[in-house]
């Protein structure tokens, strides 16, 4: 170890209170699901963390009935001010158990503890705080004096932000008076089940929140269930289209938060060191497992070489490894399946003639890891410029004029997010106008807040989460 190297600073795994078995949460109780139990794996070590009971289609039916009963008898009848107190309780309990949740999230997902501790868990708590305040003020939200909830919300969330996506879904649903049946991702069910315990500690009425671990078939059962009034899905565009097709012709209200291929546009007048930090945050945050990741870097030609040099230098200092080490920047890829997908797309980049540069950082022998990778000389037609990679892989393209940057940035069926780096304020606002994306970050990237609506244009989905706009998804308006 050299004098300037970091000593290992591991967080204690004991804080996670990891149990051997976890169970589905239905009608206020942890129950034996009748599905085949799944084993959830620590992607950093490939060790089995715990066995998790899963739901079957009949459990989905039981959960929906519980949610309906809770909706009819308790939750939709309760004054908003009282609902609010439950949401405040939940927010506080998440804060109180934040360290436990952060460690558990890193164990189950592979993300670095620095991110689960500083980003995921605090933002999840913030979503409950924010929406708690709405529960008794819905008449002021702009949807009429007394907007009504929809009923039972079926929610299916991805593995990249297991607890945070749960909060994005459950907090607005409960605030607006709906009850919930939520399916966490197959590979990351644990924090959702600790959240179920938090619901019990908050004495939330039984049936208001139901959590059903399982694979895609359970998600499909929720989506297809005739007594579900609303579907909220975050995940791939491919699955989103399938869900939209399934819901077609039913009375179910649908919101979709799907994939992205965000352009991060760097102009020659940008503060380049700051921009490089933003590029790194844009694509390597959460191992690149971010639907709004800045995965297409568009650099003005005159500074392209300089930016690439600085970028490679900066990326080579990123520390990859044990997610529980507080010095780790990049943790593990969530699953072997996802790692294979990343390898496949990277190989297509090689085959199509892009220039690959990979960080020389050491990669652990065990676990699912992928070293940060930057492709240059990328053309718009290449798969790595068009398809979502969902991993720590950046594709770099160049442009000459602002108009060309806009054309290239908008040359995608997606439209979730975009970034702009320039010192010129008028150019920021002009670019923000031109870019067809639901979120535009100027001189920053990957910022989230419950008060700021988030969601996509085009094939990145429809509906928004957060802010006053986000309430619409759960109201009959």
């Amino acid at each position: 170890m050299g004098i300037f190297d970091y000593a290992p600073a591991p967080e204690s795994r004991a804080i996670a209170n990891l149990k051997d078995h976890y169970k589905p949460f239905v009608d206020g109780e942890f129950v034996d699901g009748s599905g085949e139990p799944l084993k959830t794996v620590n992607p950093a070590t490939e060790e089995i963390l715990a066995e998790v009971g899963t739901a079957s289609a009949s459990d989905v039916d039981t959960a929906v009935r519980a949610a309906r009963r809770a909706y009819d008898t308790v939750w939709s009848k309760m004054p908003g001010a009282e609902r609010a107190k439950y949401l405040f309780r939940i927010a506080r309990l998440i804060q109180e158990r934040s360290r436990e949740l952060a460690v558990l999230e890193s164990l189950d997902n592979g993300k670095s503890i620095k991110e689960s501790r500083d980003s995921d868990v605090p933002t999840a708590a913030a979503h409950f705080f924010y929406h708690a305040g709405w529960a008794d003020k819905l008449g002021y939200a702009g949807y009429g004096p007394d907007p009504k909830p929809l009923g039972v919300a079926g929610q299916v969330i991805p593995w990249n932000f297991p607890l945070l996506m749960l909060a994005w879904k459950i907090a607005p649903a409960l605030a607006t008076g709906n009850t919930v049946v939520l399916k966490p991702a197959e590979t990351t069910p644990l924090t959702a089940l600790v959240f179920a315990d938090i619901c019990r500690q908050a004495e939330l009425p039984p049936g208001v929140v139901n959590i059903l671990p399982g694979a895609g078939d359970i998600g499909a059962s929720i989506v297809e269930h005739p007594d579900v009034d609303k579907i909220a899905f975050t995940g791939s565009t491919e699955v989103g289209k399938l869900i939209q097709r399934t819901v077609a012709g039913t009375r179910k209200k649908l919101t979709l938060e799907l994939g992205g291929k965000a352009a991060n546009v760097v102009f020659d007048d940008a503060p380049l060191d700051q921009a490089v930090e933003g590029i790194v945050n844009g694509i390597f945050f959460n191992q690149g497992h971010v639907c709004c990741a800045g995965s297409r870097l568009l650099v003005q030609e005159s500074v392209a070489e300089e930016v690439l040099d600085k970028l490679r230098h900066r990326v080579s200092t990123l520390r990859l490894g044990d997610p529980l080490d507080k010095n780790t920047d990049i943790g593990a890829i969530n699953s072997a399946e996802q790692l294979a997908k990343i390898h496949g797309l990277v190989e297509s980049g090689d085959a199509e003639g892009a220039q690959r540069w990979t960080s020389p950082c050491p990669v652990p022998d065990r676990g699912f890891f992928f070293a940060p990778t930057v492709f240059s000389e990328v053309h718009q037609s290449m798969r790595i410029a068009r398809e979502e990679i969902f991993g720590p892989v950046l594709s770099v393209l160049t442009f000459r004029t602002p108009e060309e940057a806009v054309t290239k940035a908008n040359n995608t069926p997606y439209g979730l997010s975009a970034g702009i780096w320039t010192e010129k304020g008028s150019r920021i606002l002009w670019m923000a106008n031109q870019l067809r994306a639901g979120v535009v970050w100027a001189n920053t990237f990957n910022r989230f807040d419950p008060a700021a609506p988030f969601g996509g244009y085009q094939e990145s989905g429809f509906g928004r989460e957060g802010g006053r706009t986000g309430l619409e998804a759960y109201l009959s308006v």
Partner: protein
Amino acid sequence: MSTRISVAKTYKLYVGGKFPRSESGRVYPVTDAAGTFLANAAHASRKDLREAVVAARKAFPGWSSATAYNRGQVLYRVAEVLEGRRDQFTAEVAASEGLSAEQAGARVDTAIDRWVWYAGWTDKIASVLGAANPVAGPYFSFTVPEPTGVVGVLAPQESSLLGLVSVLAPVLATGSTAVVVSSADRPLPAITLSEVLATSDVPGGVANILTGRASELGSWLASHGDVNALDPTGATPDERVHLAQEAAGTVKRVLTVPDAEPDWTTEPDLSRLRRYLEAKTVWHPLGV
């Protein structure tokens, strides 16, 4: 005895600000409510529809970036020109829908007033639906509504003018552009409306109106890769299921509409405007 023979009009499509015939060469007879022949309407084909989408896409950058004030003026101008042709519309609506002149006149008046109502929204919708977001950090974050893009509209089958105006005006007010398939059996007020649009400073391509059958054209509109949203009002409830499935292939926004055609004389709310708007959130750091 010399009786003057009236000059009969050949009704055509309205695409890209021009009045072409259907490229297919097809027409279909239109009759009044009593079954008397009125005209041969152009029977739009799939290719006409695609041309209309191209025109709507081409018009989108200009229309969506026009100032809200300007859009409001143009839409108000539509009401003015429509008012000037009130008698013609009254006659056509009466013939199409089998109404008395008085009833038809009332519908036309409501249609004119609806343009005025939507014209007034163009420069208010951003302040009503937009937001300054009080985020927890040194950022200025704001959310602005933006038009969704090209909207495919299957116009109501029964209400030939008021229904059409009620579904078209909100699309144009948001800054989106439209491809409309008119009522199949009552298309003449729609084509006369396109003459109004063509002479009201509405840029060519912003509104494109096809006379034809929703049952034939709907699925091409629903599956088209360059159409961003779909209003299936003019399709039957059964057809709507299929259209919604087709629309899923491109994650189109599909309007939820009631099974039966609504009473268009009731005062509208913001819901149609909201459906054609995306919310864009912009973040900018604060500092010195």
